[in-house]
């Protein structure tokens, strides 16, 4: 077994170790903590590169998949086994996660420099990155779930990093609980899958749960087993990746410091759901209905979240809803059969979304934690580096040629179009939603860029904004570079034959047939995006960017805008229904316990004892007491006589004795014979 496969565990272990050590640090040890965490992450990044190189080299001309499995514990006559796997998917994820995490860590040094809990922050960051890295290399659904939960924990800790704000305290709980709702499904799916396949490992030399032997077993079972397991596991993905209806936690998670938002919403946590579907893809393929569901959920989420993003004022919330929408795209891609397309979008999105979040972090930092885009404006001159990189990110997100987002989005639309063509009817929904979503995405990004960077400064803080330090700009530049060029890895092979051969596709799934690119779709989506940017540019300029001016869309359609601004009132709906119901149920159970059950059991048993004691009392007083009292008074009388008898004079005693003897004699004489 190659060295890198055997030591794959080191990649998550190093950040975990760094987290463990910094957890013991005091607040003052800021520099050692940052140094340790970034150092560990850098080592992990290097190891990830080694892993990637190994896959590239060994996988030449074919798929490589090497696993290192071990026994966690034995029970009965069998054992629960865990393992790590190195294959193109995990290598790709390792690269993305460690690269983006490393840049975000470096960015955080600048962003968090004034925070008193700087040390703790790096500890949590490291924990987060470690969990995520463990998640992507897990060769076992169980280990994946464990890392998955740890990711949830660290996001909980990071979202609530400023726990003194009540909104952050609420958001951290909401994030954990909402994702855990999905995890319930995931866990049940895990139990079921484990039970049916009898192994916790994905790949185990032909005996793994994702290998054809076991999948054949599940397929042969027929019925809804495969579909149910897939959908249950998909529940987990919906929770983590913020798919409707479990998307509500994601925008609230913006309460965390901005690097956290970048980490959670760009490269790692939210990608975990998409990754899960990618990892379990062989299972999802068993029943086509499972993938179809994924496609529809993704398509709906993509459109739904994009509409909300159009009417938000908070710079980070816009990006958050954009993330939800893009995750919908990825799911859509996976669901319509574009395994590579979905994961390619995950790959490119990680870079440009991290770039956008870090860019917004740079802006927020410069504007003294102002997040409302109505109070920004004119930042393009004051923060030129941020402006340029932000625009690169925005163009990539909008999907403009030749930025990274274009290629991945185009591939998704291509697969969606094939899906629609193959199935017909309702199957064209994903494609249409995707296209409308692309329009909206380009539109709201234009709106945001115009509000933030153009016009005049609309608040005092913005007027004095200054470009951020190089701790922050460096990562922006690196991510900007990736946002421009990462897309070329997936350059479709037939457009310009001499550039690319869709390297990404070959890397990830060499055996999978790629659809031939369609010029019409490229042209169409480019046209849609350009129109959207043009519209946005025209609407948001001049008077619309003056201080105090409302959104022109709001003036035009106030009702619609209000609904969008309030996120379709989903939160309120949940609060009125599920949350209310849970608490009402809790109170009802409490009442039932306290009064009804207590009455029956506690007072019942107490009552039984009491009745017994009443009976006992009755017996005591009538039978026992009477006898006892009688005995007592007899004894008392006897004692009085006794007192006369026992006067201490021996002659008296002798007298009584002799008198008794005489009496006895007389008696014997009279009664005897």
């Amino acid at each position, binding site marked *: 077994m190659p060295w890198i496969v055997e030591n794959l565990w080191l990649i998550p272990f190093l950040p975990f170790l760094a987290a463990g050590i910094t957890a013991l640090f005091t607040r003052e040890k800021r520099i050692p903590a940052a140094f340790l965490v970034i150092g560990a992450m850098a080592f992990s990044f290097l190891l990830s590169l080694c892993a990637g190189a190994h896959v590239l080299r060994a996988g030449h001309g074919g798929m490589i998949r090497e696993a290192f499995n071990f026994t966690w*514990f034995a029970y009965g006559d069998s054992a629960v086994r865990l393992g790590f796997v190195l294959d193109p998917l995990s290598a790709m994820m390792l690269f993305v996660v460690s690269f983006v995490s490393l840049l975000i860590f470096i960015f955080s040094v600048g962003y968090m420099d004034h925070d008193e809990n700087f040390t703790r922050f790096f500890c949590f960051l490291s924990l987060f990155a470690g969990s995520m890295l463990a998640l992507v290399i897990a060769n076992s659904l169980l280990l994946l779930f464990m890392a998955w939960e740890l990711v949830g*924990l660290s996001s909980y800790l990071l979202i609530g990093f400023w726990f003194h704000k009540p909104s*952050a305290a609420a958001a951290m709980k909401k994030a*954990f609980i909402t994702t855990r709702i999905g995890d319930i499904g995931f866990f049940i799916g895990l139990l079921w899958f484990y039970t049916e396949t009898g192994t916790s490992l994905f790949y185990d030399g032909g005996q793994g749960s994702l290998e054809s032997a076991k999948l054949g077993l599940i397929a042969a079972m027929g019925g809804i087993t495969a579909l149910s397991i897939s959908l249950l596991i998909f529940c987990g993905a919906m929770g983590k990746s913020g798919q409707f209806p479990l998307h509500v936690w994601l925008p609230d998670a913006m309460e965390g410091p901005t690097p956290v938002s970048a980490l959670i919403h760009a490269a790692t946590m939210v990608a975990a759901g998409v990754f899960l579907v990618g990892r379990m893809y062989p299972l999802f393929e068993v029943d086509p209905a499972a993938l179809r569901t994924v496609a529809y959920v993704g398509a709906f989420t993509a459109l739904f979240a994009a509409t909300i993003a159009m009417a938000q004022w908070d710079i980070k919330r816009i990006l958050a809803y954009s993330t939800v929408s893009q995750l919908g795209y990825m799911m859509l891609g996976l669901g319509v059969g574009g395994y590579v397309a979905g994961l390619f979008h995950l790959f490119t999105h990680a870079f440009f979304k991290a770039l956008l979040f870090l860019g917004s972090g740079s802006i927020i930092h410069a504007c003294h934690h102002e997040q409302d885009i109505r109070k920004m404006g004119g930042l393009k001159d004051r923060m030129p580096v941020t402006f340029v990189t932000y625009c690169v990110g925005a163009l990539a997100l909008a999907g403009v040629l030749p930025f990274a987002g274009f290629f991945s989005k185009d591939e998704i639309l291509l697969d969606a179009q094939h899906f629609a063509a193959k199935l017909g009817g309702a199957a064209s929904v994903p494609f249409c939603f995707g296209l409308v979503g692309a329009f909206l995405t380009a539109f709201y990004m234009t709106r945001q860029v115009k509000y933030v960077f153009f016009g005049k400064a609309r608040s005092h803080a913005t007027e004095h904004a200054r470009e951020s330090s190089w701790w922050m700009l460096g990562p922006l530049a690196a991510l900007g570079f990736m946002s421009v060029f990462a897309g070329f890895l997936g350059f479709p092979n037939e457009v310009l034959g001499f550039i690319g051969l869709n390297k990404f596709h070959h890397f990830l799934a060499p055996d999978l047939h790629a659809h031939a690119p369609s010029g019409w779709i490229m042209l169409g989506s480019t046209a849609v995006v350009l129109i959207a940017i043009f519209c946005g540019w025209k609407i948001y300029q001049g008077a619309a960017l003056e201080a105090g001016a409302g959104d022109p869309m709001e003036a035009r359609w106030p009702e619609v805008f209000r609904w969008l601004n309030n996120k379709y009132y989903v939160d309120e709906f949940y609060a009125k229904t599920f949350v209310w119901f849970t608490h009402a149920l809790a109170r009802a*159970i409490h009442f039932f316990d306290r009064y009804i059950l207590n009455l029956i059991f*506690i007072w019942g048993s107490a009552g039984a004892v009491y009745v017994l004691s009443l009976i006992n009392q009755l017996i005591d007083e009538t039978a026992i007491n009477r006898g006892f009292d009688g005995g007592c008074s007899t004894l008392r009388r006897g004692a009085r006589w006794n007192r006369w008898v026992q006067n201490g004079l021996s002659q008296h005693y002798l007298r009584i004795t002799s008198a008794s003897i005489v009496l006895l004699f007389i008696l014997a004489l009279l009664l005897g014979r």
Partner: protein
Amino acid sequence: MNLFDFFRNYDIVTVMTFFPCIGALFLFLLPAGSPRIRLVAFFFSLWPLLFALRMLGDFDPACAAAQFRSRLPWIPSLSVDYFVGVDGLSMAMVLLVSILTPLTVLGAFNWTGTSEANRYGAKPFYALILLEQTGLYGAFTALNFFHWFIFWEASLVPMFFLIKLYGGPDRTHAAYQFFVYTFVGSVAMLIGMQFVYLATNSWDFVELARMARTTGSGESELAMKIRTMAGTLGIPWLMEHSVTFIFALVFLGFAVKVPLWPFHTWLPVTYTQAPTAGAMLLTGLMSKMGVYGFLRIVLPLFGATMGQYATLLMLLAAATILFGALAALAQRDLKTLVAYSSVNHLGYCLLGVFAVASATGNLDDKALALNGVIVQMFAHGLSAAGLFYFIGLIEQRAQTRQLDDLGGLRKTVPVLCGLMGITMFASLGLPGLAGFVGEFMIFRGAFPLAAEITALAVVGILLTALYLLTMTGRVFFGPQDDKWNGMSDLTLRERVVSGVLVALLFGIGLAPAPLIDLSNSAVMLLAKSLV
């Protein structure tokens, strides 16, 4: 026999059992108010750990039968023996007692200085804890019903006095309720077991389990004997259902103790009113006696009977999990909340026990679930005792444990918050910490046996997260309140107590294999009798 031989061959289980008891007597030799009382108590509660570790060293995990046996005839005419031994089921529990009691004593150092806890002085307080420890050791090592029952009941008495003398404002009510309610259950069990004795002429767990394992013509030797005995009464209907009746009586005793919904209502009151040390012992160890009783008595003796009602019982276990969690969500008092969380967590153990009893299923799944029950007992013992300890610390510092009064403590007491946070996450089943291992094993073992009910019970882990995070949020997060400014963070001693707990939680969560290896053989023996 020379001295050397004596020290090699002494009956380690008995010595360990009565060591704390001797300590309790020794305490009374010290002058009242002596500062040495607590140190002496700590010494006597800690020393048995050495015995336990020595046993652990000599323990043969491959052997399913009880080891370190010692058997002396006690009342031969009633076939009562003094019969002790440690097998895979009890080894983990002995370790838990040996670890948790000294920690409780060390933790109690905080409270014996205060006027509230000083109501009756430190001497009886520690003596009662030590007596409780003896009772627990006895109950976890006895292999003869008669002498087991004595320890089972004897462990009630010190706890009664701990609550009655040192508890909260409503302590008298709580103590009596605790005693009477659990006693009613015990009496039911005693009656049931007397029938068993009359039928079999044996109190011996090992012998009775063997009888239950031996089957002939469709029913076990034990069931046959019970029916024959009931037949002498001449009521055919009674004879038909005699095994069920006896099972129900014995079951009731343990169901109250664990507790199983709906027999749990004594628990919140008792835990809330008990002093912190009492609550730690109650939740950490005494509640385990009930589950242990299921493993030691009900499953081996009445496994088949229980199997007939497995669906109903599993539904009750699911109700214990879900209703316990929901009721916890509605609480405003930290201690009551964690008390309900105990109900919730023990529900997982019961789910495993009941699932295993069902007639279907294969050996490995049952072994997994039973091992999981033991891991869960161990994990919950640590985490729940830890939570009560932390609540005690908060109450001592803040003078309140109402959720509505607390808030924003994390800023003032970060170490307390961090360690309590870890304990809490262990309790809600976070992977990497002990709680997850047990829950996963139970769920995974129970799923093939009863998928729907297990799936229902899995919802419990969501509700658990809900109330625990609500609690943490209320206590630690939110704006900093000036009234907590003078609050001090954990002292060194408090760090030691919580540090040991947290380290164990991590240890079991990451590497549960040693613990599972201990119980596996005994569990396999039990599981085989249930397939």
